[in-house]
């Protein structure tokens, strides 16, 4: 019965049907959140789904926000052992907490730092066995910290993301990123956010409820899925909106008002 509750999110993303082939392959997923409502649980959920035992999916996790121990503990409670997956080469963790460009003594330029990171990702994918190469998810937590790491040169970050986008077409990778919407919406020109939203095939927004905080409902999720049908059929966007409650071992999603 527990499987049912997170299915609203899985349904919206197409993850409830089959895991193989990975429904998100070749797609860019952008998760947006705010100070009041954190969206990292969506990242954890997607990571767990991608490392499901029924698939041969590989995840490359680029962490700017938290160290490995943090994700390990959380995913463990969700039923996924990151250490084991890492040992089985299904999970690659790039710890970017200390990445600083321009670097002090090493003289890493902002551009150089990100190019090196891209190179590392590319190399990792090439080193994978042929069968796994088709099912790679690149997960980035989170983009605003990547901007800080390059001292504000958002252009380089966008370039980096565009490069990762080429990977989605070359290798059918999926790109999943987290960013904080309220940082850009309060800026004069939210260009970075708009570019990200344009880049995204699927946009997931985590927002607080209009009525404020509540213990039973932690917020609302809006999933906007851009249709991939080009050509004759008019491309229609699928939108779904529902409430969620985050627990240690699961995220419960439900339509507004359907919870006691």
């Amino acid at each position, binding site marked *: 019965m527990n499987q049912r509750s997170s299915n609203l999110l899985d349904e919206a993303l197409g993850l409830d049907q089959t895991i193989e082939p990975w429904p998100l392959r070749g797609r860019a997923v952008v998760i947006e959140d705010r*100070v*009041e*409502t*954190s969206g*990292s*649980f969506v990242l*954890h959920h997607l990571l767990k789904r991608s490392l499901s*035992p029924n698939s041969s999916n590989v995840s490359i996790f680029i962490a700017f926000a*938290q*160290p490995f*121990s*943090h994700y390990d*503990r*959380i995913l*463990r*409670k969700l039923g996924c*052992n990151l*250490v*084991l997956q890492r*040992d089985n080469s299904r999970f690659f963790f790039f710890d970017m*907490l*200390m990445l*600083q460009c321009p670097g002090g003594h090493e003289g890493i330029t902002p551009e150089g730092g990100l190019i090196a990171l891209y190179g590392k990702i590319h190399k990792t994918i090439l080193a994978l066995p042929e069968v796994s190469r088709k099912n790679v998810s690149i997960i980035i937590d989170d983009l*605003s*910290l990547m901007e*800080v*790491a390059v*001292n*504000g040169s958002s252009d380089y970050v966008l370039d980096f993301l565009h490069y990762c986008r080429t990977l989605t077409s070359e290798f059918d990778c999926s790109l999943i990123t987290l960013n*904080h919407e*309220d*940082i*850009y919406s*309060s*800026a*004069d020109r939210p260009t970075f956010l708009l570019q990200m939203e344009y880049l995204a095939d699927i946009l997931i927004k985590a927002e607080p409820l209009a009525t*404020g*905080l*509540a*213990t039973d409902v*932690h917020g609302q999720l809006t999933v906007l899925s851009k249709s991939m049908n080009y050509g004759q059929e008019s491309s229609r966007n699928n939108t779904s909106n529902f409430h969620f409650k*985050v*627990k*240690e071992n699961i995220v419960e999603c439900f339509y507004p008002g359907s919870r006691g």
Partner: protein
Amino acid sequence: MAAAKTRASSFSRNLSAAAPSQGPGLKCGPNGLVFLSSGIPDLDKILGGGFPLGSLVMVMEDAEAPHHMLLLRNFMAQGLVHNQPLLYASPARDPRGFLGTLPSPAASKDNKSYETDPDQSKNLQEKGLRIAWQYKKYFGENQLNFDGQKGSLSLDGKHEYSNEFDLRKPLDRHFLNRQHVDCVSIQDSPDLSVLRDRCSTFSSQFPRVSCAGRIAIQSFCAPQCAYSNMEWDMLSFIRSLKSMVRSSNSVAIITFPPSLLSPSFCKRWQHMADTLLSVKAIPDEDKDLAQLLTGYQEMVGFLNVHKVARINTQVPVILEATTFSIKLQKRRYLVLECLNQAPVDGSSGTSYGTSGSCSGSSKAGNLDF
């Protein structure tokens, strides 16, 4: 998937997150976290134990009142009482001077009931075990030697996790003259490299396991600091401070005036914080507020809890109330109380059931922050 599976159980004791030898200044919590006290017992309760090691606390100041100093003072004093290394940075010319204003731990409340019987209390203090006086006769010699950590009485409050601080009594000099107390002035530095280096040296100086350090940075983006217009540099510093604090099991607290940052950067700072608090001044003689809240006259300010640290877990903390009033009990002790709506005067005609007692106030305009 027929590969031979090594017997790697998914349950492995997480020894790497070294549980520090449990001195009185540290407390274990859920999710493998270890907490240290904020110096304000009420705040520790609200936050579910205190500040977790490895977290970054940010306090948004109010330009109209220096309430953030109360938080800083208690935080620093608590660290000194527990002999935890301290690094203090401020825009003042001589930050050491501020250390002289730190409060002293209050005499333990249990002591007060024994004041009338000085011989009895002295005896008990010697034995270091808190026993109600009439039961003392039931305990044999061996019991009295028991090192009761939990209920221990002590003159200087060293054995308690969280002390009540007496704001009228300054901290004993001997606490300040210890080795691990360091002060930095950030006023004249053209950039943040000096502060970064000092924090880095501070973080690496003590072994991770046995003690936890505290870093307190006051008014980080104050305009008198030369680097205050270097927005990305400040963010970059906060990010590296955060990873330093994570890897050295310390706690850092940064206070800053949010009005001096652009809105977008203010949001970035807020996202950086693990625990986010804000303090607000109370206007004097506000008749509307006086009517609305009980105990208005004793309130010094408001404390708002925006975010509680979520390390090692994805479940958000939803507090029953996020706004608390800061009061000085007996003009000495800092307490935080939930806001309580005053009984409504029937004749005034205001609606009785407009709002709940805590954060949802009908006068949303005045208390809206």
